[in-house]
């Protein structure tokens, strides 16, 4: 039982990171990115491609900077070519657009890498290594992923509260018109927020690359996970998303060990449905009117 809970929390840390990305995007530009999971899949495949160039048995974590940079670039390209044009144009536009993007990414991956499952060829030590701690054993890869996600969470907090662009982001998410009238360049804020959201998804992909198998459609499940965590924490609430991610990890882990792996996905979605029905503004969100 304790083992299950700890496993859930460890993977939940990574889910938190994905959720922070999607929440950041939603907070600033009021767009729910239905392609967030596919950005994660992109991160996974970038890692896969770059790792094959590295010497045998090296750690995939060295790729943090190149994968992050590639994702930042991809985020900028996606934003300025498509997303920019649907900001503030109503819900159905961005829903359709990001679903379209999700299909493009999925199938481009399939075109390039093929439809079959792949795995990043990390060393046995990393894949199966575990730290024994009393009666529980912690998988090394999961612990590293969790720690890295925690570092990023702290970074996001610092970024939003102490840097100019971070403060501008918060101002924009409060009220775009007022922010603009105060001289904040919302265009820059938008593109930074979107690219950062993409980077977080990509980095999460890198962090879970030793644990998960790669397939072009892997993104769909992470999209629902990210959205569940975001809704659970309250739309646009970064700290809520962090907690939401942990809860989703926990739910998934409990469900897959007590009801079977097949039903784990369904369990996450049931939680999402219940939250939507009973607490649509999240566990911590205040009752407000969504525009």
């Amino acid at each position, binding site marked *: 039982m304790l083992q299950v809970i700890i496993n859930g929390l460890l993977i939940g840390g990574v889910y938190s990171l994905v959720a922070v990305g999607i929440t950041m995007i939603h907070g600033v530009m009021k767009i729910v990115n239905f392609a967030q999971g596919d950005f994660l899949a992109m991160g996974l495949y970038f890692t896969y491609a770059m790792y094959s160039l590295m010497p045998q048995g090296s750690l995939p974590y060295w790729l943090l900077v190149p994968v992050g940079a590639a994702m930042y670039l991809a985020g900028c390209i996606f934003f300025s070519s498509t997303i920019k044009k649907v900001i503030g144009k109503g819900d159905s536009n961005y829903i359709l*657009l990001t679903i379209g993007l999700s299909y493009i990414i999925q199938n481009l991956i399939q075109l390039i890498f093929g439809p079959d499952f792949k795995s990043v060829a990390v060393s046995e030590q990393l894949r199966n290594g575990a730290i024994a701690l009393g009666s529980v054993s912690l998988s090394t890869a999961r612990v590293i992923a969790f720690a890295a996600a925690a570092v990023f969470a702290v970074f996001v907090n610092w970024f939003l509260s102490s840097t100019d662009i971070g403060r501008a982001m918060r101002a924009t998410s409060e009220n775009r018109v007022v922010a603009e009238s105060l001289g904040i360049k919302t265009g820059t804020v938008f593109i930074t927020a979107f690219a950062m959201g993409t980077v977080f998804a990509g980095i999460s992909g890198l962090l879970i690359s030793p644990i998960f198998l790669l397939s072009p459609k892997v993104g769909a499940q992470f999209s629902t996970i990210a959205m569940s965590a975001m809704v659970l924490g309250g739309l646009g609430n970064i700290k809520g998303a962090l907690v939401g991610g942990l809860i989703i990890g926990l739910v998934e882990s409990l469900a897959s060990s007590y009801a*079977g792996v097949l039903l784990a996905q369904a369990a996450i979605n049931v939680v999402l449905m219940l939250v939507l029905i009973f607490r649509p503004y999240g566990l911590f969100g205040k009752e407000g009117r969504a525009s």
Partner: protein
Amino acid sequence: MIKNIFSLTSIKKHPVALIFILICLIFPFVISRTYLTRVLMEVFFFAALGNAWNIIGGYGKQTSWASSTFFSIGAYTSIMLFAGSGQAGGKIIPALGISPWLSVWLGVAIAILFAVVIGWPCFRFRGVFFSIATIACTTIWRQLLIYYERFTGGSLGLTFKIRSGNTLWGLHFDTDIPFYFVAFIWMIFTTLVIMYIDSHKLGYYLRAICEDQDAAESLGMKSRNVKLQAFIISSAIMAFTGMLYVFKTGFADPNTLASQDMSVRIGIVAILGGMGTIWGPTVGALITIPLLELSNAYLQGFGGGGAGWALYGLLIVVMVLFKPNGIVSIIDDIKARFVSKKAVGGDNVA
């Protein structure tokens, strides 16, 4: 209303539609290749599904990705009550052979129940909640279909035992042509439903709510009820189409019928053709379904079949960015230009 549609004025109003109907009627007798008949039948099914999506997604502007859920509810209910449940192991429901024309109503009822469960809580709020809920619902439903093997046959799905003979009651024909007309009539019926909604209370209410929900509510419209009504009609049509589709193809499996891909494909039909228009889904189906067949035929070896779907994604993105009102709006643009030129010419003569 029926009288109106078959009157002379409506023929004058929709000359292209009439030509299309005539072509469809004689098509299977003129073209002897059964493959083309089958493609056109697929077009009819997806036009019907697109019409259903259009009610909530186009007129209501509430993007639903739960289409495949309703579709597969209709399909599974009918096939289960006809051919029994589960393939391996113990069969819970024996092969009852109940006519699809009876069992479909159970499917429709279940679909409506699902629609209420998703719609009632979500239509309290504006925004994206509804779309997220529909995706969640689709995932849950597909997982349940795969999990409860004894009912649904798991990921293998359900198939009919060999059927033979021509019977409308059991909905089986030895050739494709009778089914072609069943599908055709169903598509025409759904189009009539759209026409009716378009020019009656529900359509006006939906448009008003899309334009300005506050204003509409201040005039006494209960936006939640109106949206729910649209969603219910949409889900019922999808469940009915599911029944027809599964009796045509002869098997139901969760990974095609209940997948998110199916929902998106149904959505694209309406998005491409033109959301919130009468003929949009029909036009969209006429373009996307043959396109998918072509890409299946020629791009199969290319990247494991991913190319066709990448193209679909690209189509959505392009349509949303450049022509949010779909192909029908392009036709309207051309028509408008033509008409205005004529008007200018008339002035000159005068």
